[in-house]
């Protein structure tokens, strides 16, 4: 007799949320991680997988403005919430100041960690517009980078803080 995995678990659930400002509605398996949902259902592959255990930060996204590790967040738990991924931050012609700063300072090499680093930086700068180096290093402690030794990343966050403040001032 065939064993069907679908039978071993609850039925699919309907997930309704906003991803990068776009409303979305999808039936998902209740054990689907937010990471898989973003990558496989929505094809938003800018969010990366590095461990699936919550330790590397490559999968960092924002849920209602706070960063979470999407690999250990169940997609079903973000019901009616606002998700922001790296794709929503800014594009080539309209880079977000944090993105511009990472480009300017070469705050990445392979850039596999970059989406997570950038979103962690956005959260840091929203809370602490002018962070010290120690605050920067501690804010990035959930994001591993194997290429840069963090030096250019810290420099990029410093530059981002300047651009971000300037950007906000012009907006005001």
């Amino acid at each position, binding site marked *: *007799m065939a064993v069907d995995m679908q039978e071993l678990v609850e039925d699919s659930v309907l997930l309704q949320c906003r991803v990068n400002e776009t409303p979305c509605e999808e039936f998902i398996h209740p054990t689907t991680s937010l990471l*898989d949902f973003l*990558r496989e259902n929505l094809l938003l592959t800018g969010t990366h997988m*590095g461990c*699936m255990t919550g330790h590397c930060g490559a999968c960092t996204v924002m849920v209602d403005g706070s960063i979470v590790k999407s690999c250990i967040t169940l997609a079903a738990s973000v019901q009616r919430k606002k998700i922001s991924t790296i794709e929503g931050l800014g594009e080539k012609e309209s880079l977000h100041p944090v993105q511009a700063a990472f*480009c300017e300072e070469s705050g990445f090499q*392979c850039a*596999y960690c970059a989406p997570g680093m950038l979103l962690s930086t956005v959260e840091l700068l929203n809370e602490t517009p002018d962070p010290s180096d120690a605050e920067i290093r501690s804010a990035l402690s959930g994001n591993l980078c194997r*290429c840069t*030794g963090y030096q250019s990343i810290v420099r990029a966050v410093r530059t981002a803080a300047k651009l971000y403040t300037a950007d906000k001032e012009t907006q005001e």
Partner: protein
Amino acid sequence: MTKQYVGNSTSTLDHAAFVSGRSTYTADHIFPNQLHAHFVRSTHAAAKIKRVDLSGAERVSGVVLAMDGMQAAEHLDPIPHFVDPIVFGGKTTNLRCLALGQVSYFGEPVAVVVAKDKKTALYAASRVNVEYEPTQAVLDASDAIDSNAPRVVPEWADNMLMQVPFGGGDCAAAFEAADHIVKTKLKVHRQSVQPIETRSYNAVWDHRESAITLYATAQNPHPLRYVLTNALRMPENKMRIVTSASGGAFGLKMHGHPEEALICLLAKLTKQAVKWIENREECLLTGGREQEHEVDFAINADGRILGIRDHFLANVGAPGGTPGWGMAFLTGLSMPGPYDVADLDVLANIVVTNKAPWSSCRGYGKEVTALALELGIDKAARELNMDPVQLRYKNFIKSDAFPKKSATGLIYDSGDYQGVMEKTLQLIDYDGFRDQQDALREEGTYAGIGVAYELTPEGGALPGTLVAGYDTSTVKVDPSGFVTVLTGVTDPGGGNRTGIGQIVADELGVEFEKIRVVQGDTQSCPYGFGNYSGRSTIVGGGSAALAAQDIKLKIITLAAVMMEVPEETIEIAGGIISTSADAGSQMSFVEVCYAAYTRNYDIAACIEPPLESTRTFKPGLISHTPDEEGKINPYPSYSNAAYAVVCEVDIETGKVSLKKFAVVHDCGKTINPILVEGQACGAVAFGIGGMLGEEILVDESGRQLTTDLVDYTMPRAADVPPIALGHHDTPNPITFMGLKGAGEAGVGGSAAAVVNAVNDALKCLNVEVLELPVSAPIVWKAIQAASLGSTETES
């Protein structure tokens, strides 16, 4: 020629894509009807396989195929080694993608399941039933060389994969003659490179052509194609390998891994796209660097090192297809590093055990050479009560001695080791720290300073293997003046594409933004060898420059005809063509390119279209013809660097924190300072991490205990101190533009500096840690043991 881009910190090509989540990595490819594979892995380090029962998995709905080693062997020949040990006089063995009859390490692939989605594949794999008959595992190299030890490969007479002597001169006489002999016993632990992107493969079967396209995290796509088509018994031209953006490689993605051929086979059998993404636990199985050294120095009273003896054991795990084992060979070949020691006796004992095979690791064994030499020199300095820096100065090869042939036959191109070290000491304020050290101690702070040197042969070529010294690039200029560079070298994520783009932009005199660099596609790129050994900018940049020069000549010829001026008056810069014969007249680069394609029967008849050229750059100095002692020089380039670090040790907990770090390196000419700096800082973080926390542990039966990134503690932002960087470049006289390569250097030097700093901090307590890592528990234990020892002597 004015250089607009080379030497400047041009930002990474396509940087906007990288920071907006729009670059494509291998795992990002998802094809229609995509299938997913999951491996069943051995739960024993050594066992006979009695039976593999796949029926449980086959009954799960959504499963397309399940396979064990016997079935795999029907379709797949053994996978060729990246570099077969037999080429170097070692032993060889047939490498199977799925275990056949026995397993020889924990985590070895035993069976595989393919299903319609990841979850189903994972679930079904858990229903494969494997019956094992465990046998005794041998885990330590010192146990494995015992004549009674169980054999890792049953058909071998012993567990010695290879035993290679390196050296020259008369070491015994040097030890006879010396005033002092300093012995250093050193244990380097098993580490792993762990890029944040793990390996992944996605194979797509083309039914019409009976061909496979493999999307792979691979550093060397062309040589991988050779390996895979051989194993799959298919023509080499029926496979295309495509590498996408790389999420870090560091040697892990050099091929020979069993999953590569297997995923291709599964695509062929299912006639669909089959994908596998390595999970972190699987990735942590790959290791490297586990070596035990006994380094003896014969030293004269004035500090001159007369001879070095180092017979070492390398525990390379079970035989594997990746070139991991070769690292231990390089550890021997790279002795005696930057030191002028002619009497050298090194014996590399490369031993197999029932641990998972090594993959190659950044540093490729040369980092262990640095550890052995640099920890040894510091120990000598402590024992002879000499300053460790002065001891190095006494023994460095002098800057006027190049080219210099080492005791193992390498030919060093250039260098100024003492100059590099002096700059490093200034950067870290060595004397200033020494002045304060005692005062700090009185305040209860155990601070220490450590220095180390590392010489890194780069750009290696091995005769009779697909590890070549040369590489090839094609440059194409379109009628609209856009430039495509297709190159045989690949980018592991460090930015060599940008460096190559800068070089071509300068050679052609066009804007950097017009350049596109394509790498890692066997269908469009010229045959090439990918990335390893810090070679990519040397040979990729060198060959692209040659090809660009060819095209530039055509453009100059044509422009001269069009402008009716002599060729030698033509200048091209920033996309504008001007002539010194007439200050007022100029043309755009684009206009001339268009004419090159469209006016070939009149004005452009003077050149042969298209504007394309393929050229190879083959660095000199490499010599594969053995000299009178049978030695070869496989390297064109010897980058080198000095490292210095200040640390503090909390003697209550053993925790080491790093306060300051300085590096000065000589990587020849720098194409892009900000990218080279990034490489250097990354290597330092590797070195630091390897010494402060990263360690792969197995239990007494050989089951791996290190399974996630909490067990394997790589450095986080707060663990790495600010790094002061300096350059002291002595251009390589024989490579393109004097490049020496950057990227591989730095792991060993920084690791050694950290250990030396810790031992400097603890010297006043008579504590010396030479069994690595210097993680908190190990340092704490050493402090406890010393204080117990001293109370015992007191009482």
